[in-house]
């Protein structure tokens, strides 16, 4: 919104977001459009007063807690037109015709939701940025999403709980120390990489390749932690593992597959990095 929004949009939304009064969700994926995001079919058609939206989003994080969605929609042409004809619009989730259904996940939580749009009328100023430039805008947005702390810290609560356990039982053999050291060195490096991307984003650049690189390395780290820590704890049956550490371990183990799906799959990111290397 800071980069592409109008003066009026910035004045209205941004102070309210900062005060915690407004929550946005980001509407990208659809049932038929996962990795192939450019194939989205949900449409916004021009009306006399603005736009009318029909279609469906899915895997929208926290849509059930959101006030607004910033959505990638087709505003002209068909999904055959790929990157052309896409735009970003702000949708009031309380508007008539919007239905939000949370999706319960394998860990018993509901972070994602399905969102249905049935003749939802939006005002003309719902358009953010320029009509037809939605793909460019959404790609720039993904550079933020892919290099942020949530791409490296998802399992860090488990790491801390495990370290607290090691301290409590007083285990300090060389294999344990090496594992703790490996995680610490990688965490420090990933944090520095994320900060380096943030610095470039703050300069108004769009480090798409670098952000993909941070996310792929970061999510590999996040996914390795529950596997290695589970193996470590179960290799020491003489140590009492408290209930909270065990629940944390299993929760992170269950949700870890999502780390390399959300915000772009591992394979899509590696394709972006390869392009950045001049391959293809």
């Amino acid at each position, binding site marked *: 919104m800071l980069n592409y929004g109008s003066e009026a949009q910035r004045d209205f939304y941004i102070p309210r977001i900062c005060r915690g009064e407004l929550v946005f969700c980001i509407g990208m994926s659809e049932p038929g459009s996962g990795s192939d995001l450019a194939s989205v079919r949900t449409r916004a058609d021009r009306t006399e007063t603005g736009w009318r939206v029909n279609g469906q989003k899915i895997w929208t994080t926290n849509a059930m807690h959101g006030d607004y969605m910033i959505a990638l929609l087709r505003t002209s042409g068909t999904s055959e037109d790929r990157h052309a004809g896409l735009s970003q619009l702000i949708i009031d989730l309380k508007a008539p015709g919007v239905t939000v259904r949370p999706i319960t996940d394998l860990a018993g939580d509901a972070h994602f939701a399905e969102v249905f749009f049935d003749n939802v009328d939006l005002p003309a100023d719902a358009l953010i940025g320029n009509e037809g430039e939605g793909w460019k805008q959404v790609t720039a947005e993904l550079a933020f999403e892919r290099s942020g702390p949530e791409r490296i810290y998802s399992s860090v609560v488990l790491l801390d709980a495990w370290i607290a356990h090691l301290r409590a039982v007083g285990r300090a053999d060389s294999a*344990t120390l090496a594992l*703790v050291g490996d995680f*610490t*060195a990688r965490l420090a490096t990933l944090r520095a990489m994320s900060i380096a991307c943030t610095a470039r984003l703050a300069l108004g650049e769009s480090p798409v390749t670098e952000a993909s690189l941070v996310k792929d390395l970061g999510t590999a780290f996040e996914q390795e932690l529950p596997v290695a820590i589970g193996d470590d704890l179960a290799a020491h049956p003489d140590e009492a593992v408290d209930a909270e550490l065990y629940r944390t371990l299993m929760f992170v183990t269950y949700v870890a597959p999502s780390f390399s799906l959300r915000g772009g799959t591992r394979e899509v990111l590696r394709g972006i990095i390869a392009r950045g290397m001049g391959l293809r």
Partner: protein
Amino acid sequence: MSEFLEPFERMLEDVAPPAAVRAIEHGGSTHAMWGAFAESGFLDALVPGERGGAGLSLADAHPLWMALGRHAVPLPVGETMIARALLADAPDGPIALTVADGAGTVVPCGLVAAQLLIESAAGLHFVATKGDATGVPASLAARFDTGRLPAPVAPAPEGGLRSLAAILRAALIAGAAERLTQMTAAYANERIQFGKPIGRQQALQQQMAVMAEEMVAARIASQLGCAGSFPPSLVAAATAKSVASKAAARVAATAHAVHGAIGISEEHDLQRFTRRLHEWRLADGSQNYWNRLLGAARLADPGRSVDYVREAFA
């Protein structure tokens, strides 16, 4: 920073082209190449201004060290910079660095060094001796017996000489990894198999993307190693060398996998970099060595991991 890098890089292109590197690896004279470094003033890059040096910080030196790795420079230039910063009356000539742990030690560039700077429990010692060849083809590393040492010339630096050697080694790895990643991407775009460049195969693209990730991780970790004061903290040295050493093996493996058979020929330049990556990942403490020290330091701290790494590099 870049004001030093540009002339340094120009000098490396001039004095350390592939043919000159190869000649020294085959026993040729180091005289001309070393003379160019000695004359350039870069050997005193880390020497404080009041002692007549350039007074660069480690962060300033980092890109220079990476450039040495990118050019596979066959002389202990970074090591000599460190030795001259530590000791006002360091002898002239190339200096290699090591720590006397009791057993014999293998030191990179030992065969082309005039002096070995050794840290023992008593402090720092200079030994003017050529080490013994390791018997590894084209390697410039040498084996030294550090059992009998002359009197120390100075106390050991805080945190130990190995920490300083480790951050240099990490930067050299990052530089060589950068060169290998460029060479590998270029080769993948040239080499035609199945009627198209092999770089168009998704299977190779995915491998090379991971290679690029490892290369960048090595660079960022080695920057962290050089981000603080001279000498570096344990956390800085351990982070740099652990991440860079792990990356070194993986980058070398993918570089060879993509280059195929030609990459293992002596004639091809690839091996000048992959051989060094393996030598450097094992030198001055491997990944596992530094992980154990870092793990012990981390476990001694009751705080949270994010706070720990933030405060370590504040």
